[in-house]
């Protein structure tokens, strides 16, 4: 069987992290293609050709009317069947930053409570303006729920990477909504205090700015759906593919190992696809 893992990296309409997202999948052995949304909509290409779907960061449609909403609408209305089929086929999807916002507004994240249910594309959460009211680019420390079903985050404990957003505050209508996700370990990744011991950083109580850059409920940085295949996060792991992108690399003693901490997320998905064959 072919070892090729084909990755569809969406672009167009203001998506702007498509090149680096395509590049990191290539670095971990995937074969990426940047596909304009309309090539899928017009039927020239089909999602079914691919093993992984990545919705990169950017400012789709300028983020007017709320980040990711209009891109989410294009996906929800124009690509509905292809997307549902992709999820039903058990293929991994990642949304990063604006891509995460689009997946949340599409309703793919967090998705229905039960993994056995079809994706219903109903919005259950939102990402809204940072409490600071400002768009900011800064590095944060993330910690992952080790019991999460998320296939993207397997084996990763703590990484640093940049956030670059103005609307990254994850909210849900009730505490119960959050409890449900948390007990199912779908709150896959949270902002943590970098001074805490690794593995003990996750906390529900709101961290102060800038440890939590946006005031997200329970310091949520990213979530997965109940299948563990659909994953979205506000921070940009693709922007830490190499140690030379780390803000303090001039203070570190790095010999030959320059792989950045963000790359493992993408490798996990490529390896997951291979493992399913």
């Amino acid at each position, binding site marked *: 069987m072919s070892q090729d893992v084909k990755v569809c990296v969406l672009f167009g309409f203001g998506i702007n992290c498509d090149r*680096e997202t395509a590049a990191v999948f290539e670095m971990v052995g995937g074969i990426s293609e940047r596909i304009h949304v309309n090539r899928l909509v017009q039927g020239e290409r089909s999602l079914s050709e691919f093993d992984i779907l990545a919705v990169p*960061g950017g400012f789709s449609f300028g983020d007017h009317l709320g980040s990711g909403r209009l891109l989410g609408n294009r996906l929800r209305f124009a690509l509905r069947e292809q997307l549902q089929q992709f999820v039903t086929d058990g293929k991994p999807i990642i949304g990063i930053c604006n891509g995460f916002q689009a997946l949340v507004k599409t309703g793919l994240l967090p998705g229905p409570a039960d993994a056995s249910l079809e994706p219903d594309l109903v919005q259950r959460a939102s990402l809204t303006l940072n*409490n600071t009211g400002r768009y900011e680019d800064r590095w944060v420390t993330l910690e992952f729920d080790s019991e999460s079903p998320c296939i993207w985050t397997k084996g990763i404990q703590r990484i640093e990477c940049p956030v670059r957003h103005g609307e990254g505050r994850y909210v849900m209508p009730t505490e119960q909504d959050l409890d449900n996700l948390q007990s199912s370990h779908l709150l896959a990744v949270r902002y943590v205090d970098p001074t805490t011991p690794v593995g003990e950083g996750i906390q529900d109580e709101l961290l102060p700015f800038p440890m939590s850059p946006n005031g997200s409920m329970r310091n949520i940085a990213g979530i997965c759906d109940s299948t563990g295949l659909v994953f979205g996060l506000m921070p940009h792991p693709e*922007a830490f*593919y190499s140690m030379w992108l780390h803000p303090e690399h*001039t203070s570190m003693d790095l010999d030959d190992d320059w792989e950045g901490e963000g790359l493992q997320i993408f490798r996990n998905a490529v390896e997951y696809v291979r493992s399913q064959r």
Partner: protein
Amino acid sequence: MSVQDVRVEVTPLQTEGMRDVLGDVVQRQLFADHGIDVGKVRSIRGYLIRSTYSASEIEPHVQDIFSDPIIEFGATNTSLLEDQNFFPIPPSLTVTVGFKPGVTDNPGAAANDGFKVLFPEGESTISTYISYAFLELPDGTDHTWLASTLFNGLIEKSILTTKEQLETNQATHLTFPERPTIVRQAPAIINLEVADEELVRLSNEGLLALNLNEMQTIRDHYRDEATRTARTNAGISPDAPTDVELECLAQTWSEHCKHKIFASKIHHVDTETNEDTTIDSLFKTHIMKPTHDMAKEVDWLLSVFHDNSGVIAWNDDWSICMKAETHNSPSALDPYGGAMTGIVGVNRDILGTGLGARPIANTDVFCFGPPDWTGELPSTLFHPSRVLRGVHAGVRVGGNESGIPTINGSIVFDERYIGKPLVYCGTVGLMPRRLADGRESHEKNPTPGDLVYMVGGRVGSDGIHGATFSSLELTDESPSSAVQIGDPITQKKMMDMLLEARDACLITCTTDNGAGGLSSSIGEMAEYTNGCEIDLGKVPLKQQGLSSWEILVSESQERMTVAVSPKDKDAFEALANLHEVEATQVATFTDTGYFHVKHGEETVAYLPITFLHDGVPQLELESEWIPPQHELFIAPTGLDQSKLLMEMLARPNIASKETWVRQYDHEVIAQTVVKPFVGVERDGPGDAGLIAPIHGDSQGLVISCGIAPRYSDIDAGAMVAASIDEAVRNAVCVGVDIDKMAGLDNFCWPDPIESEKTPDGKFKLAQLVRANRELERVCRAYRLPCVSGKDSMKNDYGVWPNKISIPPTMLFSLFGNQPDVRKTATSNFKHHGERIYLVGTTYDELGASEVAFHLRERGEVSGIGGQVPLLENPEGQLEVYRKLSTAIQSGLIRTAHDCSEGGLAIALAEMCIGGRCGAFIDIDGIGPGDAFSRLWSESLGRIVVSVEAEHEVAFVEMMEGADLHLIGMVSASSELLIEDGYDTLIQADVEQLTESWKGALDMTGAIE
């Protein structure tokens, strides 16, 4: 189905955990800028939908398009302000702000895009507004003033709604902004056979910005018999221009497009040296010739001066280009729109270089009045803090939404920029050396018969006369049509599409539509084939009824002009369709020698290409250098230097700009290796931007800048030398390849043409002469070719004698190769025990220094005069830089920081802040001056480095021949201690230094 207007309003839910952040931001900013707490503010966003759909059809889909079901409430045809569920008590005051007719409404366009997905039938347009409800405004707040802080009357309209009006049901609402219907005027014939005064009047009243000599030259063209015969044959008025032609010539010949001052013949007199000479074009003499000379010695200068940006070969596969522009006048009138148009405009210069380069990095340098200005302000000018916020927001949105990281920049403050802020926007581009069909991508190669497309946005009445307007001084009557708001998403879609078209080898020639609109873009490209034929009737319009000349010269944004071979027509149009980008064929290249413009079948302009481009007569100007007299700066005795250090760190020119710069995305594309902020808390200053633009490859590209307008008060030549040296120093600090650096010169000058309006024009021109001579001297010595540049020559406000002129300012931007980004340096001290060296000599050069200005503002001294920093031996300096760069590239040095504003004391403080560590320093013996001057002097050529003990010997050997001073050691304490032999000069806690440095320009109004 009839067209109807439906109103949708949306407001944030107020349930547990939900917030109204837009309202919070208004409250905080008013507090930060004016010290007024206006209390709780709530926001409502409004959409006016003009379509064939009714409210009852739209209502079920409000949550699909306009409001978020989790965090917002939205409804059709309601006034949320009057809804007691959301506003149980009517707010004290509500300010509602909407756009004036014809002003770009980006949220409206995006909303309409979303609307059409669900409501595809017929035409629809959406206009947006926003309401700020002040729930409990303190008594006595001036309502009109408050509203004025929230909107710009030039482009926006507002409605104030008081509590009383709400309680008595007398609230009014904004309605759809109606454009007045306009009717196309047939082209007029302009009689130029009139008296000279009448020619001048024609130019002035028509905003043509042409002088008498130029008007006469145009008149004479129409007297020529050959011209008349050709015109008769073409079916256009034989002996007089049409308004289309006159407007087209005015744009093409504008100072903005033709750089007439830089091209002028200057009679220069120097009263110091008795020099009396004539200079035939500053540009050709001091900028172009040196670069062309250098081009004979290197093989990497691919394209200089003639294209939209300068191009260098970076490696065998990729070339790099860079361009910087200014957008000063528009930013003065509308800081947000003007600055956004500036950044997205320079992005198009990159997209229009060769066959199209991809923008990969932005740089932004601003010059503003002091943000805490409390002095007089002419009523037509915005307060500097408002200009800062607006310009910053425009550049932030323009850069971030385009997906281009802002990796380097600066903000400079001086009172004289109150009249005219300077907004420099730069962009770096990347392109493959060759395309798939073998063509070199930095060269345009159109042939007659190629089809010319206008791609992207449509043409409207916005942006008419931008080029000629920027060639005039700013007055109360400056036209609002010169202001535009950029639309980054339309441009992003266009950019995606054109880069795909380039890679598919579909483009033969391209350029951007900036100043002068189609007349400039097609006009310039027509030089390649020697002719073109345009049909203005085909140009897609934002509104019907524009006259021919308006269509030709409108500078409506987000447009590129692209030439395509007829065989590629279908493929090109299919690509545009895929990307939802409008591309319309509006012209054809010819080889007739004529710029031939038709509107339908009617010929409305018929100008020889040579006359259009080369017909403008050379200006002849007078220059006289009389050195300005300044009272000498004499350092006060007995100053507390530690306290002075804290004050200096809080000077706006020195203070951290972190809260501003963090709002730019500096990491998109995943390539930024040295970021704007470095160190353990990621808040120390970065010297230069360093990127690794090819994913996975460690070859780097350095982008840096230098700007030093203070020195112009004494000598504009010294100002230029200092700016270049600063850019180079910054680049050296991250390990630039000294043998592959290129530069951009961007001059911003006050009007240097002597006239009644400008009685000191000769002096200002002499400043320009000196500046250019230093540019040539230093660039030749540094082997640093200028590959592109720009000048903006009318940076004045008001009328003599109450004129505010900016200090002559040149931004020097540098881009250069860096061999391996894994070996670079940052400014923060790393470890206790590192040895600290100062490279370079500290002279007694405190003239026009930051400390001199500070002490004068404090009233401690009365003069800033004295010796400005000189660069006496740039050839020797280059060798020092080469050694230091090599030391960084070899991994010996990982800490380096340039000494500039505030001298050594500030450089050391910043290095401690970045490392959150102390240092013990002794400045004995680093230079000839007294202790004060050794601390604060701004001598050029100096860089502070720290080196690990194990590398110290190798480093010192490598630097042999350089003026190297061991000045101290990084300490384990949290104290910066600076001594001069046995005297303690400065003893300061690093946390306190950090607080001073970071607090001054925070301006966030605190969080929560």
